[in-house]
Structures are given as C-alpha cells and as structure tokens.
C-alpha cells in the first residue's frame, strides 16, 4: 500500500517467497528467471555457433539427448527453432526480466525512498504472468512439429500456418502476448510509483539516472507492448481460426491480407523494444560511472533530456528495418533521416559519459569495468549503426551477419554489461554479501575480449556477404569462402560461453560464504545505501528526507574528509 503505511510482514512460506508482494522478493524472482533465460539462450547460442562452424557434426554431449534420430547433429528445422528461441529467450526471458524486472523492482522503491511499489499485487501478478508466458514458451519446445521456426521476428507468411504448420508458432505468439502483458503491468507500476511515491525532497532533478532510465523504459513498455500484443492476436487468429489478415489474396481463397502489415506492426514495437532494453543499461551506466569516478555525472539535465529525446524519437524510426521490403522512396528516405536524427541524443549521452570519466578519481571495481565496457561496446555498436541507417549501404548489408554483429553489440552486449554492472553493484545490497572482486574482474576480461572478437568478426563475414539465418554456409561456393570466419567466431564464442561460468561460480560461492556486506560498500550517497543490507521488509524505518542530488561527489562543500555525501545529508553553504 502507499504512503508510509507499514503493512504487516507476511508470514507463511507462500506469502513470503512465492506469492510475495515485497518488491525485493519479486526482484529476486525476476533475477533468477533472467539468469535461467540467459543460461538457456546461451546454450542455444553455443549450439548455433557449433552448427555454423562444424556443419553436420554431432553436437558434443547434448546432441544425442536432443536429436537422437540424426545421431546428435542438429537438423535444419531444429536449427531454425534454435535461433528463433535464442532471440526470443534472450530478449524476453533473459534481459527484460533481469534488467527491467530485477533491477527495476529492486532499485526504484529503494532509490526514491519508498517502502514498496505502489501496486504490490500488480507487481506480483506481473511476475507470474511472465512466468506463465515463459512456461508456454518452454512447453512449445516439446509440441509435435517443434517450436516456432520463423525467427524472433516471425514474419508471416512464414510464421502463418502456410510456412510453419503445427502449434509451435501459435504457442510462441501466446507466450509473447503474455510476456508483453507482464511488461505492461510492470510499466504501469513503475511509472505510478516514480510519479507518486518519491520521498519528500526527491525532486525530478535529484532522481538517480538509473530511475530515469527505468522511467523512460516503462513509458515505452506501456505504449508499445500493446502493439505487439495486437499483432500477435492477429497472428493467432490467422493460425487457429483461418482468417487471412497476413495472407495475401494470391495465395489463399479467402485471402486479401498483407504480410507487410505485420512487419510494420512488429517494428513499430520492435524498435522501441530495443530502446526498452538499452535505456535501463544507459541509466545504470550513467550512475555507476559517476559513482566510481567520484565525480558528478556530467550534464545531468542534458543526459535526461537525451534519454527523453530517444524515447520520443524511438517511435518514428522503425522503418530502417524494412528498407529492402519495398517502401516507397519518400518513406524510405524519411526513415533514413529520422534514424540519423535519433543517433544525436545517443551521441550526446555518450559524450556526457566520457566527460564524467575525465579528471575523475577512477575506482576500477568490476561494476566500473562493466560500465566502461558498455561505453566501448555501445560505441562500437552505435557507430556501426550508421552503415545500416543508410539505405544505399543497407541494401547490401541488410539481413547479413553485419546486422547480427550490430544488434548483438548494441542490444546484447551493452544491455548485458549493464545488467552485469548492476549485479556486481547491487548484489551486496540485495543479498547482504559481497561478490568476489577478483573473480568479477576476471569475468569482465574473460567476457569482454572474446565478445568483442565474436561480434566484430560478424562485421567481416557480413561485409563479405554472408546472409543471416543460414543452416550451413558450406552449401554454396560464395559463403563457403567465408566459412573460416565462422570457425574463428565459433571458437571465440565458446570461450565467451565458458567465461560465464566465472559469474556462476562467483554468485554461488558468495551465497554461502561471501564476505558480509557493509551498509555502504561503495561509499555512494543514493538512498538505497542508507538502508541496511539486505534491507528490511519495509525498507526504511522512517521515510528519508532528500536534501541533495545523487552525484554530489568531491563537492568542496563536503566536510569531514569524505568525497561523497548521502542524499539525506545537507550540503552546507
């Protein structure tokens, strides 16, 4: 409930752990679903990379388990399922729950000084709707005729029952609808909480950037997930009840629909979706760079303005996904121009990060390393976006591995590093135990180096003309000449996969025997560090009164030899 009304601590196992309405418990639930999603998606990525590097050879260990009829080698239809579910699981079951679900739920109430989310029941419902969606998605893997095979974008008429008969694709659409519904509930909850439950004194100018990132993400969630929900409803009606919204007149007796309509609907949601994934990471990085440079975030208001600009512009740039689909010249060029314009707020954000680092007092903890990793990776990913925003280069590069490299660098690497930075930074507050810094730094370097190699190698194979989503590149002479890049990429990808074990070991080791975390290990002033680690059920004994901004580091007015100040302490003078 809202305000400073302390609702009673739930008793009983179910209320406390399963159907809990405490935002911290829900954050943990989202985190573990996120880790499960990253693990599943990661294993699928390894299978995809194995098939690309060694076409036809049985996948070691797991191969016989999944595909006994082909002696462990991945058959072509299973390969299509693999990259479809890899995309879907990484985005909707891995990153969204981890970045928005876990860190959103944990950080927003604590950082704005509230006791809990404003609608705790809706919060719990949001998790269980996601859980239901994930259940439906996992169930669709075991349906006869296999799971969805139309790519995570599922363009009809391949995703209609003409291209993929069977129930797999229908169940996939239902699970996307449910996960979308869960994100809408979460979005409503986050926006209302941030607007209504800020502690006294926590003005909009004193909100940490993480909360700003999550606020804009929720705005996009609330506005654009219903669009994909409707697109999925139309697809389910097409597949189950035989309507032909996406099936053209030339193909079906009752036809008259348009597959391009789905592409428009999908990408109206699709592009804001990639910003939904990157905005929390931008927020977290904006904060962490300031925290660990012991220096205020450069241009706080400009950064928030840039985030707002990206949120607004994200609605109108989706056309760059469809340059080769046959848009009219005017439409294509206007989307090209708009895509270039949206890169400007991105650049402004980027400069503010670099300016934050400049002349700071850098403490290179693993959270800081991951945040600087985001700068490197998003720099590389963002800049290569210019190739794809320009129609004349996109005509050649569209649907090649160049695009795969680009969106992995921006969406996968940047958001993933933002999530890892969040994990290393807030784990002490969430579980009350410190993650091992040495293992953290090793995990960073062991992830960062192979990751950069893998996704930059994709630029080369894409530039060489290797199309996306091919089961076997040695089948035709042209892409066979690029097979050597596949082998290198796959080797590096396996190292990248193995490197994630470091993080698993780190988390598991810390749960049992991690060092007890002090209340404020990183000497940072935001409100969540005024609470105990882990915070009690009602977060704060008394609702804190905020007197200063989140980034008042090395402020000359701070006395007592410290270079930081709690937001609740006044800045004298």
């Amino acid at each position, binding site marked *: 409930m809202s305000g400073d009304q302390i609702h009673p601590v739930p008793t009983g196992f179910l209320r406390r752990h399963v159907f809990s309405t405490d935002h911290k418990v829900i954050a943990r639930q989202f985190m573990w679903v996120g880790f499960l999603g990253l693990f599943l998606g990661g294993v699928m990525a390894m299978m995809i990379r194995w098939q690309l590097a060694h076409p036809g050879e049985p996948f070691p260990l797991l191969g016989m388990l999944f*595909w006994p009829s*082909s002696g462990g080698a991945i058959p072509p239809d299973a390969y299509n399922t693999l990259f479809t579910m890899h995309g879907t699981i990484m985005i909707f079951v891995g990153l969204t729950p981890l970045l928005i679900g876990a860190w959103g739920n944990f950080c927003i109430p604590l950082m704005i000084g509230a006791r809990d989310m404003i609608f705790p029941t809706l919060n719990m419902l949001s998790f269980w709707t996601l859980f239901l969606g994930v259940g439906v998605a996992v169930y669709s893997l075991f349906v006869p005729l296999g799971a969805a095979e139309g790519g995570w974008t599922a363009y009809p008429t391949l995703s209609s029952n*003409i291209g993929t008969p*069977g129930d797999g694709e229908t169940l996939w659409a239902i699970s996307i609808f449910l996960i979308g519904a869960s994100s809408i509930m979460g979005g409503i909850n986050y926006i209302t909480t941030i607007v209504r439950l800020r502690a006294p004194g926590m003005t909009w100018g004193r909100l940490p950037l993480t909360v700003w990132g999550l606020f804009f993400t929720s705005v996009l969630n609330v506005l654009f997930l219903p669009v994909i929900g409707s697109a999925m409803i139309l697809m389910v009606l*097409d597949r189950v009840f035989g309507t032909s919204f996406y099936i053209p007149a030339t193909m079906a007796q009752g036809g008259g629909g348009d597959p391009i309509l789905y592409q428009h609907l999908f990408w109206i949601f699709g592009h804001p979706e990639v910003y939904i994934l990157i905005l929390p990471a931008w927020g977290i990085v904006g904060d962490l760079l300031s925290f660990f440079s012991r220096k205020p975030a450069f241009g706080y208001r400009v950064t928030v303005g840039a985030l707002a600009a990206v949120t607004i512009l994200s609605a109108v740039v989706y056309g760059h996904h469809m340059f080769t689909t046959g848009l009219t010249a005017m439409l294509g060029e206007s989307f090209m121009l708009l895509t270039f314009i949206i890169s400007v707020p991105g650049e402004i954000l980027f400069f503010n990060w670099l300016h934050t680092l400049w002349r700071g007092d850098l403490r290179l903890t693993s959270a800081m390393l991951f945040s600087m990793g985001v700068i490197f990776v998003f720099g590389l990913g963002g800049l290569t976006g210019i190739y794809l925003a320009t129609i004349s280069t996109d005509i050649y590069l569209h649907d090649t591995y160049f695009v795969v490299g680009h969106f992995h660098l921006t969406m996968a690497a940047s958001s993933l590093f933002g999530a890892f930075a969040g994990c290393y930074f807030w784990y002490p507050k969430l579980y009350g135990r410190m993650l091992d810094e040495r293992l953290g730094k090793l995990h960073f370097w062991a992830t960062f180096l192979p990751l950069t190699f893998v996704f930059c190698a994709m630029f080369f194979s894409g530039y060489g003309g290797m199309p996306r989503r091919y089961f076997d590149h040695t089948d035709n002479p042209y892409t066979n000449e690029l097979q050597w890049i596949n082998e290198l990429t796959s080797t590096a990808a396996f190292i990248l996969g193995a490197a994630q074990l470091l993080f698993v070991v780190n988390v598991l080791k810390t749960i049992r025997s991690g060092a007890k975390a002090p209340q404020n290990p990183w000497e940072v002033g935001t409100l969540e560090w005024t609470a105990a680690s882990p915070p009690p059920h009602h977060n704060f004994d008394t609702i804190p009164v905020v007197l200063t901004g989140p980034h008042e580091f090395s402020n000359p007015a701070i006395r007592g030899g410290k270079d930081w100040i709690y937001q609740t302490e006044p800045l004298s003078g």
Partner: protein
Amino acid sequence: MTRTLLPSVAALALLAAAGLLAPGDVTDEGRGAAPAPDLPPHARAPYGVPLSVAEGARLLAWDKDIERAAAAAEPGRFRKDGDTWVDARGEYAWDAEEEVYWQDVPASTLTRGRQDFVQFCSSCHGLQGDGYGRSARGLRPPPRSFLRSTFKFTKVPGAFLPNDDALLRLVQHGLDGTPMLPWAVSEQRLRDILQYVKSLSPEDSGWRDPTNEIGDVIYTPPDPVTDESHPKHPWYRQPEKAVAAGAEAYHKYQCWSCHPAYMTQKQLNALRGPSFADTAYDASLTYGKLKKDSSYEVLGYHVAIPAPDFTWHVLRYGRDAREVFQTIAAGIDGAGMPTWGRTDPDAKGSVPDEEIWAIAHYVRHLVATYQDQPAERAAFMAGVRSK
C-alpha cells in the same frame, strides 16, 4: 488481494481462447463455405491441417529388406519356417495366397512421417501428397504425386516398385535442375517420411496391391573405363574411346527419336547403312521431342516434359557416368524412356551393357563440354544443323 483483478482475468480469458488451439482433425469439409471453384484445392490457406495418422498401414514389404532386418534384429525375433521368414513381433507377415510379405507400419511411425512430410515436403508435394502444393503451381517438371506410386528416377526398372533404399537415395541425391533439393534430413526421419509416402498409395495400387513386385536397382556391371579387373579392355583408362563408341551407339540405337541428334543428316545416313542412304529427316531432328503419349497427368490435365537435350538441359540424376548408365538401363517409368538394361543379371537387355556404358560416357562428354558454354555449343550445333 483482488483489487487489481482485471489484468489477470484478461490473461485467463486469452488463455481460454488459446484452449481452442488444437482444432485437432478439422479437415477441409468440417468448415462452412467451400473454396471458390476457380482456385485449385491447394490455394486454401491450410489451417487446421491434420497432423496425426489414426491407424497403421499394411504395406508391401521386400524380401531382401526382411533378410536385412532379420540379420540386424535382436536374436530370436526372426526364424525361417520353410523358405519364409516368420517375425516374432508380427511386423512382417507372409501372405500365403498372394505369396508376398506384408509390413504392418504402426500409426506412430506414420504420424512422425506425416509431421515431417507436412514440415518439409508439403510446400511442393501438397498437403495430401497429390503433387499440388502451394509452391507447385507452374512448376515444370511438376512435383511427383504420391497417389500414383510411379517414380521416375529411382533406377529401379519400371515394372517394379522401388525399394526403400532406392527411394532414400533419390531424396538424399535430390534432382538437379529442379527445386527437389538434396535433403539434409537424417536417414531415420527420411525412412519415416517414406513409410508415410508409401502409405499414401490408394487402395489396391502401389504398395497396397499384392500383385505388384518390389525390385532392386538395375543391375550395374563395372564401368569398362575404370574397371581394374579388365585392364586389357580397349577403353580401360581411355574415356575418349568410350565416348567415340558412345557417339556411334547413341545414333545407332536412334536415341535421337526422342533426344536431339548430334550428327549431320549425312553422317547419320552413313552410320545407319545403305538402306537409309538418302533418308531426309524432319526439321526437329536436332531438338528434344515433345511426346504426347509420354506425358503424364497432373490433377486432370496432361503435362509433357521434353526429353532433355544433353548440351542444354541439366541432367536430373546424372552427375557421373555410373548414374547416367543406371538411368538409361533402368529407363524412366511413365516418361517414354524404356528399360534398356538387364532387369536381372542373367536376363539379356535390349542393349548390351558395354554399349550403354559407351552412351553414358558420350552423354557425360556432351554435358561436360557444352553445358554453360554458349559459344562452343552454338558452334557445335551450327555444325550439326548444317546440311
């Protein structure tokens, strides 16, 4: 607790709608308006496609397959009773009055086959296997209809039904120059698909007709050009000699009655001997012939596929001399190409094996030198067509 009931109710309502997911066996008839008359049946967007096969099928089995199964099966399953095998598990059964073996293919195998068939093959061969899939419209050659159990390129003489291995090899080889791909599907799944395809043969025809006989690939003697056991053969390691003999044999056995001739009329007359000295051939001597009677029927109307011109068309199942030999020897069932070779080792073929090898080498020579070489081909054909 129930203050925010609305979203969960919406989700449950949706799931109830999702419950209608598997309409199970809603076949075409189960729905209201019939498809518009002018569009062929495949044009209906196939929703509610039946994916499971209810009951198993009793199909003709091949005794060599049973011997191989007996050898591979666990001990004690097969035993020889007199000269017929008895299968303890009852999958294979000897039919006394028809003197054939029947195989009872379980419904589970047919269901797996049906599902993979819908997944891989239905886009061309049609959801009912009638050879009229969504992608089949306007395809020439049109996709094979499995409702007529005649197969062109299995290298099994026309009089016999192809055995499983011949069909399997055909699918794994694919047919070059047609959308029939070399399928990278595992052998186990392919065998299930082939069992399903065999079960499509209508009542008392194809694998359901006991009077039919399942045969093996045509007898293929070793290729004289590469056969080490006869080094003294004139063609041994001299393919050009075989090609020259092939040119002669090709025109002697009048392959040019269907395929184009590659000799001028004078040379042809000289080759065919004095009685044909001044025969005048009609203008289409050097073109593939479009034989009406050799065409076959697709959904009610005739489709005629011309005999290939070896300097122009892609050979669908003839990547090397051996495959070309087998195609000539076995003939192409239903396409006017008779069985030239020997159906079994001791019978005598209408053309001696060595001559068939020579023609095979000659055909491969034509393909290798003239296909995709427009200049050379134009010059060669101009020479042939000059009186």
